[in-house]
């Protein structure tokens, strides 16, 4: 998962859409408390502490929410195939939200789920509270009033199929919203619509990227030939500088078995392109190098091979390639890929 893009989305859109409302609610709490303090003859204006209490509680609530959503995804992922379809659905959902931000067609407004009225009323009531913990409570309660982008992130958290990945996604997103919140405080409500629209566009692009990679990753794990990797194969290539050769030419044959070695890293496979002869037994030695994330799960969808790799050392997979052409190998989420070319 591209946590940086998630963070960036928070930095752009999360900083503004939800904020216009959440900032307004926080402002109302601060005003209520100021009235209280005035009564007690405390004239010091307190905005920093409530703002931080609000943000920290919000971050905590979203991390927990992400964990729960990831857990839900994990429970729902009854099979690899189902998990891939879930990832695809999440990708399309994210795209729908992006198209809504870009105001492409009013139909996409329906992608944004509206929270039930009793919840929004509760959030509003909290914003009128004078309690000491009201800012923190409000921060935590913002999970009940998600904007479209937040919903998109939640969909990604579910499709991650892992509680920790879910928590990371939501955490990165909310963390991204923090700087703008602090910088602009709760005055964001005063920001003009045209400025907002401009900002939303950037967020929409980030969402399109997330949506497309998610759909593409699901296609890779489903073994589809219509993936971005394959598409880039047929497009003319421009190489800048000195690209690292990762190609391993025809694998050497040991005792009648063609043998290749692939290094498995936390961020991909090296080499990520190997060439095998058809109709001859092949053995691939997967050497684990360093800490693995989603690469700890190795799959060749076309052959129905999926293997959970050991933490250290190496794992072996054996098969006899039959069909001449290219097939993809991938990690569990379809984020890191490589190609086996059968000749």
């Amino acid at each position, binding site marked *: 998962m591209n946590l940086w893009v998630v963070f960036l989305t928070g930095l752009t859109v999360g900083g503004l859409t939800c904020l*216009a409302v959440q900032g*307004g609610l926080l402002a109302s709490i601060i005003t209520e408390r100021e009235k209280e303090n005035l009564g007690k003859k405390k004239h010091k204006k307190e905005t920093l502490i409530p703002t931080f209490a609000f943000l920290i509680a919000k971050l905590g609530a979203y991390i927990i929410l992400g964990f729960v959503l990831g857990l839900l995804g994990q429970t729902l992922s009854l099979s690899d195939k189902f998990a891939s379809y879930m990832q695809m659905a999440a990708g399309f959902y994210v795209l729908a939200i992006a198209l809504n931000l870009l105001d492409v067609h009013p139909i996409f407004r329906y992608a944004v789920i509206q*929270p039930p009225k009793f919840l929004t009323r509760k959030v509003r009531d909290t914003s009128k509270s004078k309690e000491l913990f009201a800012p923190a409570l409000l921060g935590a309660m913002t999970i009940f009033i998600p904007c479209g982008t937040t919903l998109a992130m939640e969909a990604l958290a579910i499709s991650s199929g892992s509680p920790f990945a879910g928590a990371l996604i939501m955490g990165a997103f909310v963390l991204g919203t923090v700087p703008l919140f602090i910088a602009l405080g709760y005055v964001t409500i005063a920001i003009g619509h045209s400025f907002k629209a401009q900002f939303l566009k950037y967020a929409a692009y980030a969402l399109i990227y997330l949506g497309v990679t998610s759909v593409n990753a699901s296609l890779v794990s489903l073994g589809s030939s219509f993936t971005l990797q394959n598409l880039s194969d047929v497009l003319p290539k421009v190489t800048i500088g000195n690209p690292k050769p990762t190609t391993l030419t025809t694998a050497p044959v040991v005792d009648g078995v063609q043998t290749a070695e692939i290094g498995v890293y936390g961020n991909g496979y090296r080499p990520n392109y190997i060439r095998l002869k058809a109709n001859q037994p092949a053995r691939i030695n997967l050497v684990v190098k360093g800490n693995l994330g989603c690469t700890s799960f190795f799959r060749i969808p076309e052959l129905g091979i999926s293997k959970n790799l050991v933490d250290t050392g190496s794992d072996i997979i054996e098969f006899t390639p039959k069909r001449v052409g290219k097939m993809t190998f991938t990690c569990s989420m379809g984020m890191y890929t490589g190609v086996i070319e059968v000749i």
Partner: protein
Amino acid sequence: MNLIKKRILIEDMHCTSCGMLIDGELEELEGVKSSTTNYAKAVCEVEFEEGVVSIEEIITKVKETGYKARLF
């Protein structure tokens, strides 16, 4: 008491929370019994007491909140 229901078309909402904001502002107006804004339909359904508050005042309030509004 003469309660009437009217629908207002609202533009420029970014997300469902804007609806919440509008409902909050309207329900604070004296005479407004309830306000339900639907983001997807961009419509606000407001129930108010005629004579206490007018639909013009309600629309003005929505505009003050920062959105474009007109009678449906």
